[in-house]
């Protein structure tokens, strides 16, 4: 489907009226053909996204997104709530398949392989592109079994020793090993919120994915736990490609190399993080980071 033909001027997604107390109403007009500003495409990309539109039934959630995700880099996705950043993130490992009414159009590639081609296996894809969710969701199993889950289902460990080693390595990488090494066989749900989230990260990296998607991983955590996760993300970015959706601009500024700004289903601007926060190209980005809406 070609976006420009389906969107008449004046339909809801194209105009946004945001009422900000004190500042008075801000009217922002977008034109349907406007392309993303900044440097959306970069050399040496791990994943490439071209002309992607996402629909929930009749409703369109994502409009014509083009962006590259750089290898061993962190890309942060920011924007007001409901702008579609989570939807977009979920399309990167086809988690949207689990929602019946959701339909993805366009071209998403990882290492030049088309994600949505019938030849690609979704199980294999998700082993390569892991995901960490907004709310920590450890399985109702022991800490050990939570981390061992991925290696077990994918048949990665040949022996028990292999598996033990994988679990330890993943927990160490997630910075959780020292806290839980004495109670590996206690329930994962008994940990604190921040520990649970790190457990989920350990679980995700246990299958050695190439890309890790994080959907507001700190939104349910207190500031100290958040700081630990952010440190962790920085460490992980040396080995993994990371795409993180976040509500917090400070977080995006701290952990990412590039930042993408979404607004009402459109990708407005992609630029190196420093530039986005110091010298945004687009007026919408500027309004957002200066706190005029969000």
């Amino acid at each position: 489907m070609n976006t420009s033909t389906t969107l008449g001027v004046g339909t809801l997604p194209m105009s946004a009226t945001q009422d900000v107390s004190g500042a008075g109403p801000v009217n922002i007009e977008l034109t349907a053909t406007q392309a993303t500003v900044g440097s959306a495409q970069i050399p040496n990309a791990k994943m490439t996204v071209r002309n992607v539109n996402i629909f929930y039934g009749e409703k369109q959630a994502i409009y014509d997104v083009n962006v590259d995700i750089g290898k061993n880099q962190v890309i942060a996705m920011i924007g007001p709530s409901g702008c579609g950043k989570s939807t977009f993130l979920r399309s990167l490992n086809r988690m949207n398949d689990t929602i019946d009414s959701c339909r993805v159009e366009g071209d998403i590639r990882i290492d030049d392989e088309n994600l949505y081609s019938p030849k690609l296996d979704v199980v294999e894809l998700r082993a390569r592109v892991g995901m960490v969710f907004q709310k920590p969701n450890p399985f109702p199993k022991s800490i050990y079994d939570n981390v061992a889950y991925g290696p077990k289902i994918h048949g990665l460990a040949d022996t028990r020793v292999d598996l033990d080693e994988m679990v330890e390595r993943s927990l160490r990488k997630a910075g959780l090993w020292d806290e839980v090494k004495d109670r590996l066989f206690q329930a994962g749900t008994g940990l604190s919120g921040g520990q649970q989230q790190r457990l989920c990260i350990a679980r995700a990296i246990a299958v050695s994915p190439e890309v890790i998607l994080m959907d507001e991983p700190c939104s349910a955590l207190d500031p100290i736990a958040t700081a630990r996760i952010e440190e962790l993300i920085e460490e992980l970015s040396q080995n993994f490609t990371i795409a993180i959706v976040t509500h917090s601009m400070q977080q995006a500024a701290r952990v990412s190399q590039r930042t993408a700004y979404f607004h009402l289903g459109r990708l407005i601007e992609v630029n190196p993080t420093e530039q986005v926060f110091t010298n945004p190209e687009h007026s919408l980005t500027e309004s957002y980071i200066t706190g005029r809406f969000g």
Partner: protein
Amino acid sequence: MHATDLFFLLVGLTVLAFYMGRGKASQIAQGLGGIRNLHSLPSYYGHYTALYCGFPALLLLCAWSIFEGPVIIGMVMDSLPSDLRPSGSVEYKLLANKISNISLGILPTINQPDALITAAETLQRYSQLSRWSMTALVSSIALLGLMWARSMIVAELRARQRVETAVRYALFACACVAIFTTLGIVLSVLFESLQFFKSVPVADFIFGLEWSPQMAIRADQVGSSGSFGAVPLFVGTLLVSVVAMFVAVPIGLMSAIYLAEYAHKSVRAYAKPALEILAGIPTVVYGFFAALTVAPFLRNVGESYGLSVSSESALAAGLVMGVMIIPFISSLADDVITAVPQAMRDGSLAMGATHSETVRRVVIPAALPGIVAGIMLAISRAIGETMIVVMASGLAANMTFNPLDSVTTVTVQIVTLLTGDQEFDSAKTLAAFALGLMLFLITLILNIIALQVVKRFREQYE
């Protein structure tokens, strides 16, 4: 006046009391210049008066009706010459019946001893007297209540509060019916069981290996002491229940999983209620189906393989019972499976697990407490199920674990021992209550544990 007539008289009086109370309140209000000068609306004063008129009188009427019979009979018995007085409780009942039958004219007076005829006359006289005094007492209490309540009505009377408190107590009493029901069950079963355990030791009953409750009518007859070892019944019950669970658990669980996790919404919308039809079919229908369709079918199949299948095999009853229980397990399992948060599934799918791996390794373990509780409820259901086994399994108390044999169950024995014209106090009927006690205790324990587990599970994911 008869109790029913008196009841209707009382209803009439109560209605009258309502209008009188309301009328007086309105009158007072008029004198004061409008009903806003009353504490409550006039109708509350009406209800107030009606309550005082009807309630105590009704209570008395109920008590009188309940205790009238036994008290009068007791008095009549006391008036009998000592040589006719009954020795035991059974004889007492028989004699009481005889006397009342004579007085009602059901038994002809010819050939009856004079003392009995006199007793019957005494009974008639007492009954008449009782009826008269009941009428007088009940109606005078009602009238007194009416008058008193009406005289109490003044503008400041907090009639609404009084009436509402009464209503609240009435509601509370209704809620307590549940307690009284449980109490009634426990007492009735326990009391008769204790009688039974006087003649048969508890240990013999629970651990005894032979069940043949044929009691002789007279004490000196051959085989007068039946044996009441309940183990064969427990084994039979267990066998049938196990067969039922072998059918119901896999089918119920797998269909719940399929309908909750895989099936298209439209398939689910039809298949789920269609499966639940199985729970709505009366058990007597299943019993008929088991006895006339499944059992002969199994026997024929068995014959063609050279197996001897009893025509009242535990297998037939168990199979059909299992079919009946499928929806219990499937709907309970469906509840808990859908209660498992989507985040769990997402977490697993995002790791690259297939759908079935997610279900088997994450969803089912998460839902396990609920599923186990559901299975426990289903077992309790199977143990207590009566009609299927009464119609499709046998009476012979065989000690066997072979499902092709005929076995008998606790519920079958209860029904067999208590249907027909049995003398109430014989060991045979009392044994049925002892079995009932066992049944009640076992199902109660299963239910309490299961309901507790389900409650915890709900709280965990709420």
